[in-house]
């Protein structure tokens, strides 16, 4: 069939060559895009942060700064707003090395405790518990929010540490986080990891993050 047919459409060698070319072309394009993307998603430096230069993934010292998530008219989505005010984690500004080490501990703990098989991180993982992409900015942890009141702590980070160490003591719903034996040090690392993740430019995911929290406070439809 292959060799004698007049039509190229029934020629095996034509399709074999086409398959090889298309696969090769797609692979080369992917590799080229990978080089570009990796250079854009490398972690930034402390100097860039100090100068206000935006990076998609800022340096670990971003945990020394105040982080917000605001709607950007031009892009049509929410973007992280970093600084310029400082808001050091646990009230103590960390050097680039200290911040890097704390983030490293946090990322290791996140993997070792298998967070991703209940939660989603950047939207990837399991769907049994809330997405953690912008957990640092969740109103649940804010001043006057339920978690600080429940744990009896006066800051977001302290409340988070207390909860992560004893999640079984602070239930908010029937579905509860189990006690995973997280130590205080590990919990601090996790909080640094979460704060850093909230500073990543995720192209607006999740959209309209916790936009309705005002309803909870003022007695809207779902007010609790």
């Amino acid at each position, binding site marked *: 069939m292959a060799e004698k047919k007049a039509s190229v459409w029934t020629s095996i060698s034509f399709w074999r060559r086409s398959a090889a070319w298309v*696969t090769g072309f797609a692979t080369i394009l992917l590799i080229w895009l990978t080089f570009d993307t990796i250079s854009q998603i490398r972690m930034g430096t402390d100097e860039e942060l100090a100068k206000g230069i935006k990076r998609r993934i800022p340096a670990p010292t971003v945990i020394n700064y105040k982080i917000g998530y605001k709607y950007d008219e031009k892009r049509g989505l929410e973007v992280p707003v970093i600084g310029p005010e400082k808001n050091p984690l646990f009230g103590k500004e960390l050097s680039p090395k200290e911040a890097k080490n704390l983030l490293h501990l946090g990322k290791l703990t996140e993997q070792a405790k*298998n967070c991703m098989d209940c939660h989603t991180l950047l*939207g990837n993982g*399991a769907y049994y518990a809330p997405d953690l992409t912008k957990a640092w900015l969740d109103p*649940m942890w804010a001043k006057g929010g339920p978690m600080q009141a429940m744990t009896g702590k006066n800051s977001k980070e302290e409340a988070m540490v207390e909860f992560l160490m004893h999640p079984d003591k602070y239930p908010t719903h029937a579905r509860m986080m189990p006690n995973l034996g997280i130590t205080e040090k*590990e919990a601090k690392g996790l909080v640094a990891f979460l704060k850093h993740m909230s500073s990543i430019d995720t192209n607006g*995911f*999740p*959209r309209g993050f916790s936009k309705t*929290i005002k309803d909870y406070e003022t007695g809207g439809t779902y007010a609790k």
Partner: protein
Amino acid sequence: MLSSIKNSAAVSPSKQLAMMYFRVAIVLFGAQLLMGLIAGLQFLYPSFLYEIFDFSVARMVHINALVVWMLYAMIGSTYLMLPDETGIDKPVAIGLGKLAFWVLTAAVAVVVLVFIFIQVGPGKESSIWFINEGREYLEAPRWADIGIVVVVLIFYANVFFTYMKGKKTGIMTVMVANLMALAGLYLAGMFFTDNISIDQYWWWWVIHLWVEATWEVFVGTLAAYALIKVIDAKREIVEMWLWIEVLMLFGSGILGLGHHYFWIGTPEYWWEIGALFSALEPVPLVAMFVHVLYDWGKEQGHADAHGKGSAIKNGPTMAWITINAFGNFLGAGIWGFFHTLPQVNIYTHGSQFTAAHGHLAFFGAYATILIGMMYLGIQQVYGIERMKTTFKGKMAIFLITFGVLGMTVALTIAGYEQVLVERAELGAGWQAFFTAQNLPWYIQAQTWREIMGVVTFVGFIYLVLDLLTIGKVAQESKE
């Protein structure tokens, strides 16, 4: 299938090794379903096994058993077709191949036991190396990663050198080239980084380029081989189809990777690239569907013209291949396309929509054809001329397919509710999540998911009973 095979002396060593892989695959398939039932039940009764066998543990074993049973069945299928395609009965290093099987099985057993009994570790490198890597689908600790690489290298060398020594069919050429990509991609998932975006960038190279590229081509190869065996399809036709499928699958699937790079910190240009190429991903799946039905119709027409009765030499395999053709298109194609555009995905990303798609796609694209290959293996090692579908086999087909479709529909409804209430209406925070999870419609959908999970499991029991007995029964009726 688990009982001893009578005429084993006449069966090629490669096919015997294939059956060893199939046996472990079916056990792991059962483990996957059991873990799914536990995890599904925890959605309805959160206190069930709380702090004993938490959702994260059940879910981890659920998805890992899935990946590993499929890899086992894929290795088994390769060893099954190797003698027929190369004309060599005994792969060049069959002894080493058998040893690799036992090493891999021992390693899988240790990993599963550690997952079940140790579960999590402290935040140290040693946890990543010995307990749990904590990255969805790739939870296997690093020591096991390295072990898997060694075992897969042995398997690949066996296939490659046997191929080089024997006949070089088009099917086997695609198989050898594709397997190299499949095995090589695993390396992209074997490192640690503090940067979650870079972590997920490479993580998707493994996950996506497996299930939406190399695994799909693998399925195309299996379908080509099985159609020749089951309905005497003409080799020239299936091989031409196979090359067209490779062209379309890799042409869309490789850059379709972009649809995972919308929200993980990667640049915005992935929106367009991911949307365009992943929207094309269903095209080859339609083609594969058409191809199977076309060949079936053609060969049946041929058989009718010669008054030969049914063209199908293996009923259950043909049934599972047909379900594969349809399920792949529906589960991977349609359900994938549902939420692949960034305009939709910004709301659906990481919701029960994803779970719905995952269930139907893994079942439709992979579970079905791999079960078909198991039946083909039984037919070959028992030396059965024509294998008909038994009552148990039909029950398995009906209950498993109906069960998975039911779960998919239920999860789609749950996802729809979750997306509208949690994401669009309330904006994805902690309270938004639980408000949506606790709505009666969501709970109702999760209840139906669990019921349909039980239906699937009953179907699985029929499947195991059928696999255990069909060979013997057919052999005895022949005698």
